[in-house]
């Protein structure tokens, strides 16, 4: 995807807490300049993995690099990384701006950017309010502003949309899209893929601490093209499926439609055959056309055992 070395590269990374395996032998690469979605169910090991990237948690086994530096030396790369992990944690008695000033001071960043960052995340007029008085959405946005201090090359955002209302989700998703300007790599986790679908161009799917899929988002669970047929009457759905299978097609019911695998046929010819078969048995097709799968469909199919 890019000739630059990967921003994040992990090799067999594991973390165990006694008998509990949080992350198991995770080997992933996040190319430079992408928005990489890190997706998996709750408890899949996403936060632990991110904590290891940030030097907060020591891996039990494995190795890796972030921005070309080994995980064992977080001081070498963390000044180029901005992160929000496990929810926004700030001093409740300090204002939003004061909290950012503390973080800018500790990292040696220019505090002059604080006003601009607050504006960017939509807190321009609330920067002087105490953090304890912020709503959940405002706290998340302050967390993102804090992550952006120092204009980092890598942004690590752990469930940044958690707890937000639909308007907040839309707003933060838009913000993530704007932050990924091709120069910066964004590594963002979520347990709900639809939250990230529109902004991610790279996807890493984990489940039970292990890798399930990594690669371009568009390739997730691609099992080949299909066409979808929808009979006029719902009670004809199963009859249509049986008819098509009897005619030698690879078909199955999915939702309110029958999916017929193209399997190397010409889609146009296949659609004509399906239409003819249905019509011969008196089934009127209300819809017939290419099947469109959402990323969420493919993700769920993958996590539920498809490619593991």
């Amino acid at each position, binding site marked *: 995807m890019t000739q630059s070395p990967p921003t994040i590269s992990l090799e067999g990374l594991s973390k165990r807490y006694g008998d509990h395996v949080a992350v198991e032998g995770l080997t992933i690469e996040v190319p430079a300049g992408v928005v990489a979605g890190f997706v998996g169910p709750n408890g899949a090991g996403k936060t632990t993995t991110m*904590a290891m990237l940030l030097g*907060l948690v*020591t891996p039990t086994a494995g190795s890796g690099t972030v921005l070309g530096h080994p995980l064992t030396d977080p001081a070498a790369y963390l000044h180029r990384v901005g992160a929000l992990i496990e929810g926004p*944690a*700030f001093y409740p008695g300090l204002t939003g701006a*004061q909290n950012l000033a*503390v973080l800018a*001071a*500790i*990292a040696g960043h220019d505090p002059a950017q604080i006003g601009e960052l607050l504006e960017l995340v939509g807190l321009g007029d609330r920067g002087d309010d105490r953090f304890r008085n912020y709503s959940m959405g405002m706290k998340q946005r302050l967390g993102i502003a804090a992550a952006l201090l120092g204009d980092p090359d890598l942004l690590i955002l752990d469930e940044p949309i958690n707890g937000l209302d639909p308007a907040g989700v839309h707003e933060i998703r838009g913000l993530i899209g704007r932050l990924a300007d091709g120069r910066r790599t964004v590594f963002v986790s979520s347990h709900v893929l639809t939250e990230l679908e529109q902004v991610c161009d790279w996807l890493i799917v984990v489940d039970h601490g292990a890798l399930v899929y990594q690669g371009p988002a568009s390739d997730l669970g691609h099992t080949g093209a299909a066409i979808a047929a929808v009979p006029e009457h719902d009670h004809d759905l199963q009859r249509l499926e049986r008819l098509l299978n009897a005619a030698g097609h690879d078909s199955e019911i999915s939702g309110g439609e029958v999916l017929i695998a193209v399997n190397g046929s010409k889609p146009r010819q296949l659609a004509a055959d399906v239409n003819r078969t249905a019509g011969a048995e008196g089934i009127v097709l209300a819809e017939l056309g290419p099947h469109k799968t959402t990323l969420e469909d493919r993700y769920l199919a993958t996590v539920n055992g498809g490619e593991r």
Partner: protein
Amino acid sequence: MTRTFRAELLKLRRRRTLIFAALGALAFSLITTVAVVLSAEPVANSGPMRDGRSPTIESLSGSGAVAEPFSIGVSFLGILVLVLFIANFAGEFSQGTFRTLLMRQPRRLGLLAGKMAALLVFAAGALLLAELFSILTALIVAPSQEIATSQWLTLDGLGEAASTYATALLGIGAWATLGASLAVLVRSIPIALGIGIAWSGPFEHITMDVWDAATQWFPGLLLEAWAVGGTADVSASRAALMLCVYVLIAATAAGMVFRRRDLAS
């Protein structure tokens, strides 16, 4: 460490914090100084002195007495300092802010040291303010008790005040380090407070009643001895030596644990 020091000072430099600290120092000085001065009686009227800490009109009239009310008052401050440092450090864990700070300053020992240094500088400032308020209050109240203050502001008197300040500061530093270390090791405000208060309060004093040597070994009792310049059981030098050992052990243990421990909820 320098950046962490500056960042911590940013929090402490807020107007509200400064006003609160100044008012606290003022209230503490007023209450303790007025109580000490007004309770002083002529030697002829006073009973046997306990540990040399019950001042008389005569003892307060000497050049060395300028900071005596402050010295007596500050000996009760240890537990408060312990509580404040436990709350501050353990609060960083419970709020998750240590995590946020470590993502910006991954050198963990530097983070702890910078934070501790800033808090101690702030405590030193508050302590100095308290001593100045105390001396001022004593100068105002002393004449009502017929305590002579002519020797107080001499070179000897001021030297004694400086010495009292240094002793108090070292004691406060030890309480602070023990509190911060306990907080880092335990990470929970209520548990650390429970351990710290129960140990230095009831446990040490009850044990002292059944084991005389406790005064020579227990950190809380040693700090009490240090605050009064030594007791019949423990000299100031032994108290200082033992406290140095305790502080060093506590700080080392806390540093080692903080450096290695995973910071994730």
